[in-house]
């Protein structure tokens, strides 16, 4: 687990992101562009000021960058791209999650060195269309993914492959035998395969593979005990 999250930008997105990620980080720093350093905001965070001409020496001195993940969430896309570029130029290995409001900015952010993109327009549009076309499945997946239901999603690393005794993922009746649904298998190269895809059908389960499973918490824990351990 990374210890520190650096959030660049103090706006409505900051509040929502901070609320959702705080359980994953030991410390969160929030930076406000061209603003005044504020001692504490309404959530108790110290807000520090930064500007785009920053050479990041101060940041390097105050935190261990290797333990950090950065969130670039400035609403002005040109400034957000510049910030991402500036961070990437200084910190080659830093994981940067950047906010994008359109396809054009997404392409530029990737070029600027963002590790992950939060595409606001695209994501919202996708969800709207899914809600209209497949309302049930969207609601169910949304609840599973964002932990609003007692059915959970988990990623489990296979450490005890011999348990499956050379079986293929598609041969096992997961729902009947383990009361879980195995959605995908991620091989050692990180390739995601749906369990009934042609490739997964011919892949024996090996140690180091990751399973993406959906199920009740107790069943997932039981299953995890059988095959190895959870990623989280």
């Amino acid at each position, binding site marked *: 687990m990374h210890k520190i*999250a650096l959030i660049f930008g103090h706006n*409505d*997105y900051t*509040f*929502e*992101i901070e609320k*959702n*990620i705080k359980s*994953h*980080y030991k410390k969160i720093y929030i930076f406000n562009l061209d603003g005044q350093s504020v001692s504490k905001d309404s959530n108790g965070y110290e807000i520090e000021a930064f500007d785009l001409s920053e050479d990041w020496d101060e940041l390097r001195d105050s935190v261990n960058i290797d333990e950090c*993940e950065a969130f670039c*969430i400035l609403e002005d896309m040109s400034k957000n791209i510049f910030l991402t570029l500036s961070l990437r130029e200084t910190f080659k290995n830093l994981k940067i*999650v950047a906010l994008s*409001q359109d396809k054009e900015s997404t392409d530029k952010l990737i070029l600027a060195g963002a590790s*992950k993109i*939060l595409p*606001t*327009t695209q*994501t*919202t*549009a*996708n*969800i*709207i*269309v*899914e809600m*209209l076309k*497949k309302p*049930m*499945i969207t*609601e*169910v*997946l949304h*609840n599973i*993914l*964002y932990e609003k*239901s007692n*059915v959970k*999603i*988990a*990623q489990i690393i296979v450490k005890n492959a011999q348990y499956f005794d050379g079986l293929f993922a*598609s041969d096992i*009746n997961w*729902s009947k035998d383990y009361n*879980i*649904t195995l*959605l*995908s298998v*991620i091989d050692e190269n990180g390739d*995601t395969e*749906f*369990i*009934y*895809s042609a490739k997964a059908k011919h892949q024996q389960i090996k140690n180091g593979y*990751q399973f*993406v499973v*959906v*199920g*009740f918490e107790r069943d997932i824990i039981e299953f995890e005990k059988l095959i190895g351990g959870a990623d*989280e």
Partner: protein
Amino acid sequence: MLKSLLLDAAYKINTSKNYTKTKHFFYNLLENSNYKYKKVFDFFMIALIFSSVFILIREVKSHVNDELLFYNNYVVSVIFLIEYLLRFWISGSITEVIIKQSEHDVMFGAEFNLSLALRDIFYQKIRYIISVKAIIDLLAILPFFHELRLLRLFILFRVFKLFRYAKSIQVFTSVVAAKKFEFLTLFIFASIVVFVSSVLIYVMEANNPASPINTLFEAVYWSVVTISTVGYGDITPITEAGRVVAIFVIIAGIAVFSFTTSLIVTAFTEKLDEIKDTKLIDDIAKKREFYLICGYENISKEVAKKLVQNSEVIILEEDEQKAIQAKKDGFFALHYDPGSIESYRKLRINIETQVKAILCLSHSDVENVYTALTVRSFNKDVFILSILKAKANRNKLLFAGVNELLYEKELVGMIAKEFVGKPVAFEAIHALRSNYNGIDMQEIIINERIIESFKAVADLECHKHRIILLGIYKKNKRNFYFNPTYDTSLEVGDYLLLIGNMQFIKEFTDNLHKGK
């Protein structure tokens, strides 16, 4: 006694389902251009008119057999008479006038005034009878009643009946009517020129034995032919004074001709937007079901792009530039305010039957609230989805009647959580959602036909079909049953939530509908 009987009859007729249905049917058939059978009816009437006129033309120089004459004088005329009477019937409601007058009198504590009601009915019907279209209709029937030679000319009025059925003629008439003052001015000017020049040419030419203009009628004929720039040349002035008059009439003729042309062009240009709008409204009426997007922003573009792949989408945008942009992007966009009831009325959008869902995607919560309230003011049931820009406005949008709200910032926060918490699982779900490698998620509703062959989950044999049954969604209970056991019973109205290869899901679905 008579009043009471009339009133009872009016209420009885007015509340009779059959009567209302029949009247509505004939109204649609005769007047509603969006009614699917109206075109068929119009074509039938046009065919009757053409056949009637053809017989008349043939009759001028050849013998027409008795059957054709019978067809022309009686069959066609009777059909036209029926049409005339039906139009007379639907031109207003006698029963409604009686009921309205009675309720009005009751409200003011007075006795039912039958004479006032009859007066209103008389005005209502006479207004129809003296309308130009009704007069033409009546004249087109006249040969049926009188077979006098002179009255046969009235058959020509049947040609005028085409005005009713040809939309382009109606458009042209409305364009000309819009400039009636200008046309009247032009007509008066032309009449004065014709009158003055006729008198002058008669005075100059009539006493000259060599001149072909000997009567005032010939002078008027010459003036009209000249001013209209037709100039047959059969009558020409021969005196010098007469030719001077001719020069002035020719110049006036050019002015009249140019003025007429420019008037028609201007009238058409001014009416162009209206004509285009009428065409758009007709196009909307033809659409069976569509999504209505209110406001054109980046998100609207993305949503519309995805929805148009297998559905119809209409965009309403108040800002003209944005509406133009939406059209340039290839969407069916209209420059109308989605927050105004007038827009829906003008566009004749039937929310109940035509609109699948309304999407309020403007970047202003105020506009989205306004749109939702507008729609809710005349439709309580249509599904409304809106985006939320400021968290503080959530309750306002819900209060305005929005069914689903999407707060973009909250969504971003949740995605960020998944990114840092379960990146692999998130990618897997994302891959499923984006149909990665042909994998799809589908929901299939269980109907009576399916339930006959598939009574429990075990009967579905999902594993054999290589698809995942994620669970069953009971819509009425809004409950999701994850991984149901094999003995779980299926019920009509249940949704099966499936994940699998698109082809396999299709085969599975076909199998369900075919039965065992």
